[in-house]
């Protein structure tokens, strides 16, 4: 059977499986991804070492384990996996929310240029206000993300386009902010102070430690909770914003609130792991296909799947080129670009 024939046999409305089996499967896959994240890498460790480390660290046991291995597992890999899960969940939820609010299937932080804006903001703080406190970089990223939102919105709606044009505006915004980032990083020429152009444009989890989880996890959980709270209002956007207003949604307030939330989530993610693309594109579409378009199911499913996806992508990025650091955004883009093409292909009948 050809690929085209196989895709035609996919039900157009998706599979709409129950939420419970999908969450269960995702949780099981997440456990596998976590185990892989703890065991695989330049130094391979066994399942026994991982079990002993987790027992010692989480349950206060004192099982025998090589301290160097325990250090690698706990300080490097566990923190990295936890941050990957939180950031993947946050990016996937951002994609769900942006696609619903903007009624555009390609809306996500990276393609809209929000991640690029956050990168530029973070770099500006690092280079221009050297020595800014711990909150300085995320705050700079947030300012950059907000600026990107404003610019992209102005470009899209000021040009009289509306939501179809917003991806074009996002491309323009990405280019602009990436150029600014590259310029600032290159002109500062201080390798100690900057994490490099690649980090800010493609992302990496290489430098992540436990203190980063203290930002990533609460932000991701709070964002998830807020989006779940507004899930039904997001459903009401299915027939457009006037229809949502007629169903009792305070459209202007909701959109302002949730766009601000996606800016905060994106800024937090970018300040920790750089601009990782396509998580917010691939995951919402895959989950919509599996659990249907209702946001009460879609949001938790996307959060879990996003966590799995970014954790898995990080493991792959460590394994593909031994001894080399492949930016995690390269791996997500390898999956994301074909997904982008598939979405365009499937939506062509609706025009």
């Amino acid at each position, binding site marked *: 059977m050809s690929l085209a024939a196989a895709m035609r046999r996919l039900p*157009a*409305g*998706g599979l709409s499986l129950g939420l419970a089996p999908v969450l269960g499967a995702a949780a099981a896959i997440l456990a596998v991804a976590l185990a892989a994240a703890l065991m695989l890498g330049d130094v391979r460790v066994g399942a026994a070492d991982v079990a002993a480390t987790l027992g010692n660290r989480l349950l206060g046991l004192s099982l025998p384990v090589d301290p160097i291995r325990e250090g690698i597992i706990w300080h490097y890999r566990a923190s990295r996996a936890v941050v990957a899960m939180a950031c993947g969940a946050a990016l996937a939820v951002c994609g769900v929310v942006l696609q619903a609010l903007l*009624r555009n*299937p390609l809306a996500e932080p990276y393609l809209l240029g929000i991640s690029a804006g956050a990168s530029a903001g973070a770099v500006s703080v690092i280079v221009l206000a050297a020595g800014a406190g711990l909150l300085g970089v995320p705050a700079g990223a947030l300012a950059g993300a907000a600026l990107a939102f404003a610019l992209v919105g102005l470009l899209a709606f000021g040009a009289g386009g509306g939501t179809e044009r917003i991806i074009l505006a996002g491309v323009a915004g990405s280019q602009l902010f990436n150029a600014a980032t590259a310029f600032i990083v290159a002109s500062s020429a201080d390798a100690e102070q900057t994490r490099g152009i690649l980090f800010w444009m493609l992302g990496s989890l290489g430098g992540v430690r436990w203190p980063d989880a203290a930002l990533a996890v609460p932000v991701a959980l709070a964002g998830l909770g807020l989006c779940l*709270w*507004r899930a*039904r*209002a997001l*459903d*009401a956007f*299915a*027939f*457009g914003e*006037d*229809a949502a*207003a*007629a*169903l*009792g*949604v*305070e459209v202007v307030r909701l959109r302002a609130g949730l766009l601000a939330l996606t800016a905060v989530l994106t800024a937090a993610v970018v300040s920790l792991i750089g601009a990782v693309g396509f998580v917010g594109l691939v995951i919402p579409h895959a989950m*919509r296909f599996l659990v*249907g*378009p*209702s946001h009460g199911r879609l949001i938790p499913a996307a959060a879990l799947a996003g966590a799995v996806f970014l954790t898995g992508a990080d493991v792959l990025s460590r394994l593909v080129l031994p001894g080399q650091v492949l930016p995690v955004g390269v791996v997500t883009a390898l999956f994301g670009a074909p997904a982008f093409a598939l979405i365009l292909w499937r*939506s062509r009948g*609706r025009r």
Partner: protein
Amino acid sequence: MSLSAEDLHWAPGGVPILRGVTLRLPGRGVLGLVGPNGSGKSSLLRLMAGLRRGTGGAVLLDGQPMARMRRRDVARRLALVEQDAATASALSVREVVALGRPPRRGAWAPWSAADEAAVAAALARAGMQGRGDQPWATLSGGECQRVQIARALAQEPRELLLDEPTNHLDIRHQLELLRLLPHLGARVVVALHDLNQAAAFCDEIAVMQDGRLVAQGRPAQVLDAGLIRDVFGVEARIERSGAGLRIAFF
């Protein structure tokens, strides 16, 4: 009291679209809104549903200015079915109708038996019982209208505003839909194109012309050759037969 527009003006970007409309709903039954293209029917319905804020005058709900009410409270009172609802979401008929329930539920309240019953009752009233599992994307134009009406009924409104629901329907489905209107359990305001249908199916008719309401009353009182000539620019002869009325155009 219910729903009314009081000297309502609307001039988006300075262009007057509504120029002082006062429209009060009859105590019960179906009010037909007729008028030429561009006379402001859709605009009036959108303002009366609170989707746009007037630039003068007011929309009142039980004597209260709607502008000061919370959107959610408005959505529990009245429902709107717009022309040509479209979505890219892969929703089923039941999911579309269920969109009408959130105004009646809390954000965390689980889907209840009462919600399920309201959706089933709305589907039945709109003549779509047993079709809940069908994908929205596979419905015909007439079925889409019925499902949107069912969604509106799931809000359990006391006023239902319909904008040209008979558009794109063949004559049988037009008649089926119009016959449905008195049985929806709500006061209905319906924008219509066909004057004969308006005369046959509406208890009252309101005539719009160039952003103004030029007549309101029972069809037999309102529709005469002079008004039709003035408003629509066509010659017509009115044939009365008992309580009924037929308009022939030349």
